């Protein structure tokens, strides 16, 4: 049972860290693209939206090649460790958060732009002020990223190696038990995973509602 606890804890740690890093990078990125005007902007937006659909297994393979000892970043010895899984999931989740943030900020920019510019806020500073102001609607973007991270198996299994006690998470355990033919166990784990995700979403929704009532 404690083994299961460890697996669930690792799943949450890896995915939450990935979402944290992806948000730290992706929210400013999305806001900057929303507010900025530069050549190639529309192509960049299309690319960002497309990257939301990055296949996890492809990300896993690319990160594997990067982190392998034979690869450019091999000296850090990160392959088959939880940090490698965090890196892979961050890459996977970053486009989702950035693209959804860009859309939300762009929509809000229509309302806020003139007033902010009149007050002397412009560029990235105005964009970040906006991001903070619309933070509750960005919760949806972050949750989308978290959902993707918790649900994927292709990336973490390649860069993590599904090592017993070290890099085994819920999705890779489900894959393993399925391949061993232990379908009832795999199904139970699947239900635990789904329940966890539902719980996280419910809590986030309630927080968002309460805050919206408070701040208007």
């Amino acid at each position: 049972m404690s083994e299961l606890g460890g697996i669930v804890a690792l799943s949450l740690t890896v995915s939450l860290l990935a979402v944290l890093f992806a948000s730290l990078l992706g929210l400013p990125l999305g806001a900057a693209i929303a507010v900025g005007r530069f050549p190639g902007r529309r192509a960049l937006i299309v690319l960002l939206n497309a990257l939301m659909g990055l296949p996890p297994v492809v990300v896993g393979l690319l990160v594997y090649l990067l982190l392998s000892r034979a690869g450019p970043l091999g000296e850090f010895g990160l392959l088959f460790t939880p940090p490698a899984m965090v890196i892979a999931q961050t890459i996977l989740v970053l486009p989702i958060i950035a693209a959804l943030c860009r859309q939300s900020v762009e929509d809000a920019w229509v309302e806020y732009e003139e007033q902010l510019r009149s007050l002397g806020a412009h560029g990235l500073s105005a964009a970040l002020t906006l991001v903070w102001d619309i933070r509750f609607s960005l919760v949806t973007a972050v949750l989308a990223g978290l959902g993707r991270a918790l649900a994927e198996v292709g990336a973490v299994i390649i860069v993590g190696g599904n090592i017993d006690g070290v890099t085994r998470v819920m999705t890779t355990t489900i894959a393993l038990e399925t391949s061993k033919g232990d379908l009832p166990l795999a199904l139970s784990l699947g239900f635990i995973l789904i329940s966890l995700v539902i719980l996280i979403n419910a809590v986030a929704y309630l927080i968002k509602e309460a805050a919206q009532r408070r701040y208007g």
Partner: protein
Amino acid sequence: MGLMRFFLALSLCISFSTEAQQRFITVASTTSTEQSGLFKHLLPLFEKKTGIQVRVVALGTGQSLDMGKRGDSDVVFVHARPLEEKFVADGYGVRRFAVMYNDFVLAGPKADPAKVAGSKDIVAALQKIKAAQAPFASRGDNSGTHFAELELWKAAGTDIAKDKGPWYRDTGSGMGPTLNTASGMNAYVLTDRGTWLSFKNRGELAISVEGDRRLFNQYGVILVNPAKHPHVKKEMGQAFVDWVISPEGQKAIADYKIGGEQLFFPNAQR
């Protein structure tokens, strides 16, 4: 690029904080070996004795050897002798030691359309299956098991790559998923006994052919060559290799049983 380095340094710190305390080696092995449960039995004994944690990355034989070539593991523990010998000959491994053998069995539908059940001759059985065009599931994934299967088809006089028909299903997957497919399709399938014994989704499948000497599956262990990859943990890796072929390690292997049945037969030469 500067941001990437910062990010990596951060990950390294996180990674270090948890791992600086833990001495460990990385062993590349095969899915069938891991799924048999041998490592869960064996590795705690080694760790207790030496304090070295063994992290097994279980892939197909082909990928495990590739891992060794890249220097992503310290030790390679697979069951494909010709490939292992080439690995050492090409300078990627220090030396190959025989460790143990297990056997393959041919599982098949109880209805037995090719009429091979109870036979002790795997080659004849394969010929009958091909003649009857009975469904056959293959791993097709460059694994040791796949390799062994191809050798048996060769012995049966068939170039399976050329002669396969719709009755031959190439799943490109590990042992477990291939068994799932075979169970779902009521097909014959070559599997190692360990995975078979732990496999719970048998459906209509049962053992059709076993006991043929040609079904024996030899395992070898190799230390990845530190001359090629200086970061390899050669002392700890060598300690593992030494232990696994030592009388103590060999006894531990023999002691591993599923349902009272021994799965692996130690045969290291001293």
